[in-house]
């Protein structure tokens, strides 16, 4: 049985603290990832590792891992600690319910599979037939499929594909959770089960490109599923390409001052910073203002890493999404644009909780583009 130090290659840690210094939630929770690495090196093995409830506050933004000067991956250790809690069955009921729902219904939201395409009711959305070749697969994702606020992202994407004259297909109700958040929550077994099922489905079609609504789906398909034999992009990258190739043009304009929030899984994890900005700059009428904390330094909204289903432990101070919305209001913009369904939901809620209603609107890049078509 490898020790935690062996399993997560922790011995390189020099305890410099750059990880914790960069951790966005360290400001407002008791999560101290540097200390967890120290305990991993000096402490007992995973089975006897002390229970760390604050490990559930991590958003897996990967700032710690990006900043480590010694190539240590504190985020992986943290996911491992979560995994140890999961194997003991000791997780909060909301986490338990999300995991059980994903196993039973293929989505963490407790909704049944049969209703996964309800978002497309008034549209004509193609569903790939068995074994059919799919040059462009639109992987909708659980959140845009089921959440009322985010269903508009999916509808907007379909409108843009239509306007660009790009044929595409979805997997309809056969589509299942990509597992990105499942893996981040530490349920390795469920993640592997999802990968197995999804790979079987993906491999049974000849696919040219997979386009996702969510950076989370893109992240796991691209980096953790092995060789899928096709390219995987987030829709912001695909729109950038469409604009570059002259396949997309705008008939209208959006006369608004906007800023852009870099989702952690698009930016920090996958270095996709410029394509969404290029798309924004193409939308007529838009005046773009950068956040001070932008790109790699973007302030995590606290929606990732399973946080959508976690009752956070012992929080203090202001939620990061509230700070982000207030910063956007201070910039004097009308719209805060993002490109991730979790960012959209957390920032949208934060408009209310930060008392910024009427001062700013949160919108997804896909919705903005669709509006200006």
């Amino acid at each position, binding site marked *: 049985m490898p020790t935690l130090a062996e399993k997560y290659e922790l011995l390189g840690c020099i305890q410099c603290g750059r990880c914790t210094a960069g951790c966005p939630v360290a400001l407002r929770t008791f999560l101290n990832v540097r200390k967890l690495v120290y305990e991993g090196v000096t402490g007992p093995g995973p089975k006897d590792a002390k229970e760390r409830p604050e490990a559930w506050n991590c958003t897996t933004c990967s700032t710690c891992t990006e900043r480590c000067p010694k190539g240590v991956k504190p985020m992986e250790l943290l996911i491992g600690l979560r995994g140890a809690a999961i194997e003991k069955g000791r997780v909060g009921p909301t986490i338990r319910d999300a995991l059980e729902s994903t196993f*039973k219904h293929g989505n963490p939201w407790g909704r*049944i599979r*049969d209703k996964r395409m309800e978002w497309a009711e008034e549209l004509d959305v193609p569903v790939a037939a068995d074994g059919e070749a799919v040059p462009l697969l639109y992987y909708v994702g659980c959140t845009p499929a089921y959440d009322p606020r985010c269903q508009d992202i999916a509808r907007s994407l379909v409108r843009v594909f239509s306007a660009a004259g790009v044929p595409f297909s979805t997997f309809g109700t056969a589509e299942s959770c990509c597992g990105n958040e499942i893996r981040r929550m530490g*349920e390795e*077994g*469920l993640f*592997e089960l999802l990968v197995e099922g999804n790979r079987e489905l993906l491999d049974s079609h000849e696919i040219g490109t997979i386009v996702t609504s969510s950076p989370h789906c893109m992240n796991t398909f691209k980096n953790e599923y092995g060789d899928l034999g096709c390219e995987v992009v987030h829709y912001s990258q695909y729109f950038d390409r469409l604009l570059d190739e002259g396949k997309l043009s705008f008939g209208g304009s959006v006369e608004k001052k906007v800023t852009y929030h870099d989702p952690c899984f698009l930016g920090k994890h996958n270095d996709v910073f410029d394509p969404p900005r290029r798309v924004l700059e193409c939308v007529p009428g838009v005046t773009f203002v950068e956040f001070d904390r932008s790109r790699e330094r973007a302030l995590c909204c606290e929606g990732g890493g399973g946080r959508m289903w976690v009752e956070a432990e012992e929080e203090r101070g202001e939620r990061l999404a509230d700070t982000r919305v207030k910063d956007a209001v201070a910039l004097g913009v009308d719209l805060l644009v993002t490109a991730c369904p979790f960012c959209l939901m957390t920032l949208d809620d934060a408009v209310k909780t930060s008392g910024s209603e009427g001062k700013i609107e949160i919108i997804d890049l896909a919705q903005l583009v669709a509006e200006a078509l």
Partner: protein
Amino acid sequence: MNIVVCVKRVPETAEADLKIASDRKAIDEEGLAFQINESDNYALEQALLIKEDLGGEVTVLTAGPEASEEVLRMSMAKGADTAVRLADDAFADGDAVATAQALAASIKEMEYDLVLTGCMASDDGATAVGVALAELLGVPHATYVVEMEIADGKAVVGRELEGGLVEKLDMKLPAVVTIQTGINEPRYASIMGIARASKREITLKSASDLGLAAAVVGAEGSRTQILGLDYPPVGEGAEILEGTPAEASGKLAQVLKEKGFA
């Protein structure tokens, strides 16, 4: 403290558009996800908590088809020590009493201090198996239990009554207790845990293994019989209050006052 937990595999019907099967005796199960009966899950958790506190063994028992074994595996992944499935065509389509006959015959072969089961199965809603089981075993029972303490070979249980009242009972063990949801917070069974549990043995018992005549169990041994299932009639009486939120809430307040709720 040796505990037997009786569990059932049931369909999850929350959002589903249910269809009645062509023979009108059951629902069409196609496309439904299956899981452990909700209150049985709470009973299992209660058994595991007692085991963690007082030691002993937890046996999980079900009467059902082969597919039911997934519920037994999940229970073992959570910590149950032994799993038994009553596997025999003779057991099929039994009502609450016929099912209890089979379960009782199996439990009589075990050494037990406590039998736990859910207060109600979410598919048929009979709420009778636990009570019939106690009668057949000749032990006391308590139903809809939301509080439980075990000490010195006795159980002190709280039964959920209406209006938030809880009835406290002293019970000598062995006893049968049917558990209401909310008594605890069930743990999670990981996929890897369930995979490991798949390698463990599930004991199968047939009617003849248990010395049961076919006439006593299953459809033959049932005192009640389903004549047919029908959809509830589409009724009237649902009124949609139109208008802006301010207007609609005004109308709602009026309705509540008129009907005596406010």
